[in-house]
């Protein structure tokens, strides 16, 4: 405990600790050097989207197998569904390419809808995206942990602890700065892409040329799942589709982060976006085809520990060999990096919203390492809480996910449509049609997600996002009110006040004498020393000291405290003095001892109580006169 207090209170020591974890401060002038080249930007911004291949197929299968109970028939629906998702991906990506060129300063859904749709749509977009970034972190870390647990089944009991630990590590990495964490995390993304394509390539080769049989399942759960023969209703088909649609989350990250690219930013960002969409689309489709033939199994309660990807890898590579483990680690790596995408964008978006006075100003502050530290910390804490609440299970978090992202997509594309109609640039008609089509498609998907998954958890973002918008508006109203209040007209002069200075005297000692001398230097209209006494002897002692130290020109008031309370009589006295004049300003001077951190708590407790009570009192200045005791 003492160590903790030391750490908090001693500035030099705490900054040494901070240095160790966070690194040395970077000057503001170095900002431009922290731009990302394409090969680093791809892992930083695209890993979120690409990593969703690690769980999207699995989530579709869970709906068909475990919720709909379709049995073997589930696999026949997999490929048509993934084609639908890939088409959706193509629509959204082509719409976002336009956004990148239209908004080279970062055109997240928030910015686009703010400029084209107005205040409330933009706040909805902002709130949705913030919620989704938090979920990105939670889902990705949970997914990454699932990959590790698939490789080492013994770790299963520590799922939540592992998730929280990983979130803490990523948070610290991000507090150190964007570029460093980018190059730290880049290799896993490329490794994952290689693993994924080799898994799909080798898998399809073995399936079609070497006639690799489906995975044989012999556990009880598996047999039960496969024995079911319910037909897939439209409801479950849509539910599976909305699970698959999570593959699209993270696409918007590139458009959000255009300013982080090297110059020319829009061109680099757009190329990165297309590369990302290509990788995402082909690998997602390829995995679905592979899963259709190899028939991996997964249930919604986590009874089957291995992820679909792990089951596929085991079957394709013929057991738990080096290829299997590399795939698992690469999956883990990219999912951690996907969580990192949230860290690249949540702080950036929250700083933009804060700049518009809809979020607390603290989110605008860049820390020592040029990152928006408060946003990073907030994201880490809230996603950690989500993981703990939902037990670190990906499929428990998935229904919460995607609502926000598709709301964001819809508003962003609707915004682009309005913009095209307004500006009427050359060749705007096909682009506007593209945006309108994209907006209606994604709106439909958002609607489907909310409806079919409402009971599973989609109600949470449906409640949280409007609440966030309400908070944004309330915060904005407050800031506006403060600003209009502090605004000064031309020729305004600050009024003069009758200045009362009150020195609180416990006993007459060096501190008191210093405080009185200081009070006299303020040249107040009236200087009063106030002491709360309990007995006649106390009063006489102070009175004698007053004469002894030549203070008789200072007014000394002694008051009694009937109930031995120190704070109340003083506050009452201040109230009385305050009532005497209308235009008065009261300065309360409190002599305080400053000792070492270890013994500071032995002093000034009553001063602390008085200061706390005076904090919100109007026209009251509280001054501590420190007496340093070495």
């Amino acid at each position, binding site marked *: 405990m003492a160590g903790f207090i030391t750490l908090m209170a001693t500035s030099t020591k705490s900054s040494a600790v901070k240095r160790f974890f966070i690194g040395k401060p970077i000057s503001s002038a170095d900002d431009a050097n922290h731009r990302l080249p394409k090969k680093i930007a791809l892992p930083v911004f695209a890993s979120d989207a690409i990593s969703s291949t690690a769980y999207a197929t699995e989530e579709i299968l869970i709906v068909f197998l475990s919720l709909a109970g379709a049995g073997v028939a589930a696999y026949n629906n997999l490929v048509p569904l993934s084609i639908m998702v890939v088409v959706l991906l193509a629509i959204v990506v082509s719409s976002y390419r336009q956004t990148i060129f239209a908004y080279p300063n970062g055109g997240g859904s928030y910015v686009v809808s703010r400029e084209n749709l107005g205040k409330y749509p933009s706040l909805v977009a902002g709130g949705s995206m913030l919620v989704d970034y938090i979920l990105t972190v939670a889902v990705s870390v949970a997914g990454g942990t699932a990959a590790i647990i698939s490789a080492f089944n013994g770790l299963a009991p520590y799922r939540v602890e592992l998730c929280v630990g990983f979130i803490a590590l990523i948070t610290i990495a991000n507090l150190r700065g964007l570029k460093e964490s980018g190059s730290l995390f880049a290799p896993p993304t490329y490794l994952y892409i290689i693993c994924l394509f080799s898994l799909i390539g080798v898998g399809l080769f073995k399936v079609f040329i070497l006639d690799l049989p489906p995975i044989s399942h012999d556990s009880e759960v598996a047999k039960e799942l496969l024995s079911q023969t319910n037909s897939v209703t439209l409801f479950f088909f849509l539910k599976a589709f909305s699970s698959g649609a999570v593959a699209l989350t993270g696409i918007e990250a590139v458009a959000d982060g255009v300013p982080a690219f090297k110059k020319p930013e829009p061109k680099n960002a757009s190329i990165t976006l297309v590369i990302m969409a290509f990788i995402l689309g082909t690998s997602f489709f390829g995995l679905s085809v592979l899963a259709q033939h190899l028939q991996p199994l997964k249930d919604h309660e986590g009874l089957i520990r291995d992820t679909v990807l792990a089951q596929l890898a085991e079957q394709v590579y013929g057991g738990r060999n080096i290829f299997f483990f590399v795939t698992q680690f690469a999956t883990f790596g990219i999912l951690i990096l996907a969580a990192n995408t949230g860290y690249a964008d949540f702080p950036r978006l929250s700083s933009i919203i804060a700049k518009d006075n809809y979020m607390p100003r603290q989110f605008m502050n860049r820390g020592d390492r040029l990152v928006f530290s408060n946003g990073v910390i907030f994201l880490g804490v809230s996603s950690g809480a989500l993981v703990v609440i939902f037990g670190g299970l990906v499929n428990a978090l998935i229904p919460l996910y995607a609502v926000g992202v598709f709301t964001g997509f819809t508003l962003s594309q609707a915004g682009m449509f309005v913009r095209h109609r307004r500006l009427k640039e050359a060749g705007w008609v096909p682009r506007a049609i593209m945006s309108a089509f994209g907006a209606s498609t994604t709106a439909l998907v958002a609607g489907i997600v909310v409806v079919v998954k409402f009971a599973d958890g989609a109600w949470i973002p449906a409640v949280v996002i409007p609440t966030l918008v309400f908070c944004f508006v309330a915060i904005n109203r407050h800031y506006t009110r403060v600003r209009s209040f502090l605004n000064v007209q031309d020729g305004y002069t600050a009024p003069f006040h009758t200045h009362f200075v009150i020195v609180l005297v416990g006993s007459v000692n060096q501190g008191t004498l210093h405080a009185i001398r200081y009070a006299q230097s303020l040249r107040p209209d009236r200087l009063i020393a106030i002491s709360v006494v309990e007995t*006649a002897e106390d009063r006489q002692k102070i009175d004698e000291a007053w*004469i002894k130290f030549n203070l*008789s020109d200072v007014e000394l008031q002694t*008051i009694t405290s*009937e109930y031995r*309370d120190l704070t109340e009589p003083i506050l009452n006295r201040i109230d009385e003095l305050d009532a005497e004049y209308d235009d008065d300003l009261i300065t309360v001077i409190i002599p305080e001892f400053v000792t070492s951190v270890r013994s500071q708590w032995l002093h000034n407790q009553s001063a602390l109580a008085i200061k706390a009570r005076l904090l919100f009192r109007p026209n009251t200045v509280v001054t501590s006169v420190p007496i340093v005791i070495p």
Partner: protein
Amino acid sequence: MGLKNIVKSANKGIRELDAERLVDRFAELNLTPLGEVAVRTKVKVCGEVKRMTMKPRSGIPSMEIVINDGTGQVTVIFSGRRHISGIEHGGCLAVEGVAHRERNSTVFLNPAYTLLPHGAE
């Protein structure tokens, strides 16, 4: 806001409690209650010493004593001295003289005074 009100009402409770105690203490003396002191007529009042102030009034030391009897409070000023033996916190003081208003308090300037023993008489 809520917290402030709670604190205020709790605080009021203590003040009322003290006022009741003081009214009890001085009830049988049958003097003018301090809350009803009229200015510019001779009155006799008493109360418990609540605040003592030693301050220079135009360069001359003076002593201001606030007494309270539960119905109100008045300020008694004795000029030219910093100390009167017998007047201490918690003690009781009966005062006979003419009061005047000074700012928002009722003031007796150098009145005749009697020290009352502790406890009711």
